[in-house]
């Protein structure tokens, strides 16, 4: 594979002495949309959490742009949208601006960037509404907008369509195709995989079975 942005070697992860991930080798290509397909409990979410640097590995090595990853190194480069995202108890605007504020981005720039993302995801009318009052689908879009606005090197999405209706699925899919970022997304939907994936990976019982 050309230009792997991230590479995993001999990665093992277990909970309570049971292996949930056992991956001898796996790499992800830069600027491609990767889809990880697998049933519930196969290790998809754990893999994304490890890549997002919020879950520690028991064994193995992770390389980002050929450099071995240290603890916390990837936090500002990779962003994960959780399967059931947490929405802060504040306005939709503040929710989306969170990552930018953390990075001390200037107010004017925050306003501009947030406005663009709000428009792209059709969330303008909710700008000043409290995020926790939205429907599950809208909350999911806020979480996606919150990740996109910080323009990460890699975007990880854990079953991002679970709460979305067909119209919004289409909207998000178009947006993902447009971004030209490295995206890793989990799903259980084979049709979606064929529709979107540049690269697809299947995972079962913690083992990558096909790439």
């Amino acid at each position, binding site marked *: 594979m050309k230009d792997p942005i991230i590479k995993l070697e001999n990665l093992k992860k277990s909970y309570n002495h049971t292996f949930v991930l056992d991956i001898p080798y796996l790499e992800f290509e830069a600027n491609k949309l990767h889809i990880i397909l697998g049933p519930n409990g196969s290790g998809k979410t754990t893999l994304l959490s490890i890549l*997002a640097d919020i879950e520690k590995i028991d064994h193995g090595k992770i390389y980002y742009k050929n450099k071995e990853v240290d603890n916390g190194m990837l*936090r500002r480069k990779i*962003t*994960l949208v959780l399967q*059931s995202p*947490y929405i802060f108890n504040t306005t939709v605007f503040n929710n989306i601006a*969170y990552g930018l504020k953390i990075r001390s981005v200037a107010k004017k720039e925050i306003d501009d960037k947030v406005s663009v993302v709000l428009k792209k995801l059709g969330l303008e009318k909710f700008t000043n509404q409290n995020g926790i009052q939205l429907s599950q689908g809208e909350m999911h879009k806020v979480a996606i907008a919150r990740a996109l606005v910080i323009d990460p090197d890699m975007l990880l999405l854990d079953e991002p369509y679970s709460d979305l209706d067909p119209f919004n699925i289409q909207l998000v899919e178009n947006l993902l195709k447009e971004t030209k970022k490295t995206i890793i997304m989990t799903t259980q939907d084979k049709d979606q995989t064929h529709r979107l994936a540049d690269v697809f990976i299947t995972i079962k019982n913690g083992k990558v079975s096909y790439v």
Partner: protein
Amino acid sequence: MGFFIEGIKSALNLLFSFNRDVYSAVFLSLRVTTLSTLFAAIIGVPLGFIIGLNNFYGKRVIIVIFNTLYSLPTVLMGLFAYGMFSRNGPLGSLGLLYTPQAMIIGQTILIFPLITALTISAVQAIDKKVFKTCLTLGANYLQSSLTAFFEYKQLFVAAVIAGFGRAFGEVGVSMMLGGNIRGYTRNITTSIAFATAKGEFALGIALGLILLLVACLISILLQFLQRGK
């Protein structure tokens, strides 16, 4: 029954005639309890947050200690503090015994374990997704913790209000460290005890009504905050 009705009538008379003894006790109680709650919150909330957030060896033992301390009888805490501030005690040279300052320190010691223990419980109630979300959006450990704190601020405020309630209604520490000096260290609870001992039930009931009113306000505030989350 007539005894209580007469007592309440006299009490209302004392309240609406702005009786000096009544209002001096009320203002002292408010001043001492507000300051002791403030100091206990400054120590207890961050301490409880750190203990609750981190996993370390001996954490369970520390939680048991705080849970034990917060249910300790106030007279026992008063006795301990009295020993510290009495002339022969380690802090006797400060000359604080029988002053409002000693009452503030005593109440701070009394309620800080309660605030700490309730803060620990509050931290354990935080949805772990808050931290995950903050971290994946690029926040560091401190920023994630602060975000979680503000997301669940009602629970921490509730812990502080519960501390205020305990300090406002306690009598042991105030009596032993304040000495119940009229117009100086006599607060609501020591006044009630003193008035009852002297047979001045009207004064006792008047102050009891104020105590009840504050307890009611605290309860309403707690319910309001808990509904907020």
